[in-house]
């Protein structure tokens, strides 16, 4: 279980996220939504241990933090022209097992090949990452998550700018991990997808506006936050107020 205790994260003297408390239950599947600049990525990075909280703390119960959490960065934070092979990228998911010096065994190579097959990229191992489309690139990063085999997955905008096919495939993968008992936290913009596929929602606008079952969290009470989101993200994430809602 991941528990946030009165978490405040600041850049310089500006608080990006204020006083977040709550917990991600084991096996829960949570969408983190909110307008631009709401601090979603910041909160996710703090949970992942990339940022140090100004106040409060992140508690991971029952496991070493670096083993418990797998983090998927926003694709924009990665150098996509970097000349590294697909297989090497996926194998990096085994870092906790092999570290800087451990050898890549035949067994691990097989695991990499299997993971690539699972994300629909069988036989792509020898390709270079700089040849891939955005969708293929994201599939490779999902394969890397597979190798990490962590019980908690933190994903920053996993479907942003992905084609429909990739989104459907990767979403199916997330649902499979959810069924297998993984705890999933994903920063998302598409409110339709959140309503349909994510049981829990954390609505964030520098502080927590709502955190609970999706239907409650995306309630009309928070329309003032969600309407601008829909405008920012276009028809794809259209906010559709229900009749009488």
């Amino acid at each position, binding site marked *: 279980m991941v528990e946030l205790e009165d978490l405040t994260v600041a850049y310089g003297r500006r608080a990006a996220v204020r006083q977040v408390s709550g917990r991600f239950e084991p096996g829960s599947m949570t969408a983190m939504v909110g307008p631009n600049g709401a601090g979603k990525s910041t909160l996710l990075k703090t949970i992942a241990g990339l940022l140090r909280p100004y106040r409060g703390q992140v508690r991971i119960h029952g496991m070493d933090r*670096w083993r418990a*959490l797998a983090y998927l960065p926003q694709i924009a934070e990665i150098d996509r022209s970097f000349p*590294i*092979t697909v297989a090497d990228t996926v194998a990096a998911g085994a870092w906790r097992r092999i570290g800087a*010096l451990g050898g890549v065994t035949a067994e691990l190579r097989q695991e990499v090949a299997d993971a690539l097959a699972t994300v629909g990229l069988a036989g792509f191992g020898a390709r270079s990452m700089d040849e891939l489309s955005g969708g293929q690139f994201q599939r490779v990063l999902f394969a*890397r998550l597979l190798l990490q085999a962590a019980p908690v997955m933190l994903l920053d905008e996993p479907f942003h700018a992905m084609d429909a096919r990739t989104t459907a495939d990767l979403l199916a993968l997330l649902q499979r991990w959810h069924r297998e008992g993984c705890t999933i936290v994903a920063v998302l913009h598409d409110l339709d997808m959140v309503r349909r596929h994510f049981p829990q929602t954390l609505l964030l606008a520098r502080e927590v506006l709502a955190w609970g079952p999706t239907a409650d969290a995306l309630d009309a009470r928070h329309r003032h936050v969600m309407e601008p989101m829909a405008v920012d993200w276009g028809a794809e994430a259209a906010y559709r107020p229900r009749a009488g809602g």
Partner: protein
Amino acid sequence: MATPYVTLVAPFVDYGFMRRALAACAALSLGSGPIGVLLLLRRMSLTGDAMSHAVLPGAAAGFLFAGLSLWGMTVGGFVAGLVVAFLAGLVSRNTVLREDASFAGFYLTSLALGVLLVSMRGSNIDLLHILFGTILAVDDQALYLVGGIASASTLILAAIYRPLVLECFDPSFLRSLGARGSLYHLLFLVLVVLNLVAGFQALGTLMAVGLMMLPAAASRFWSRRIGGMIGASIAIALLSGYAGLLLSYRCNLPSGPAIVLTASACYLASILTGPRGGLLHRLYAPRPLHP
């Protein structure tokens, strides 16, 4: 008669100083080839340049205390290079200046300070020696030093290669694994300085970075893999060292510039003819049809 043997091999067989120079170039190529590629991929090409200038005042201080002594100038150059790298990093992390600007500030200071220090005691000849090197005067002691640094650098790089590449490709992922990215970065900077100090023995402070960055930049046009780029970079550096020395011997040119200019020629040739995005390749590649 100018047989191929006489033209291409004989100078290295006949003269000990040419052999030592060639060996020094080979060691430098093997040591700094991979370092240059990683600098390039980390978008730190100019950092290498800045650090080569930063080595100068240290070497000059060593010269001031110990004259043209190998160890004095080596240790001085190494310490000064590290201090500047550290200070530049500190400034870029804690002030509004970005790393390139803070490096520029420090290396201009270093260059001026270095020239001042050398001219306080030495002649213009000494200054030229420190700035541009005298690879034809490399003695056994210097050769051991260059070889030792190249060997140590290759071994250390092999040990930190994986995290270094990962940190460059996807830094937040590496940090999310709890790995100390900054530690590897620091070790890498130490390797950069070490290789520049080794290059300084042969090529001088200003030319040393040439054999590091030009082959690395050229290698991008020959391979899409880091391993391939490192291989290409080492090969181009070796070729430049050999051809540059030969050129300098045949045409009576200063050896450092001859080597670096040969590397430049390889760089230009790669831009034109390299199979991975070279200009000619682009020109004659089949174009996608427009509807």
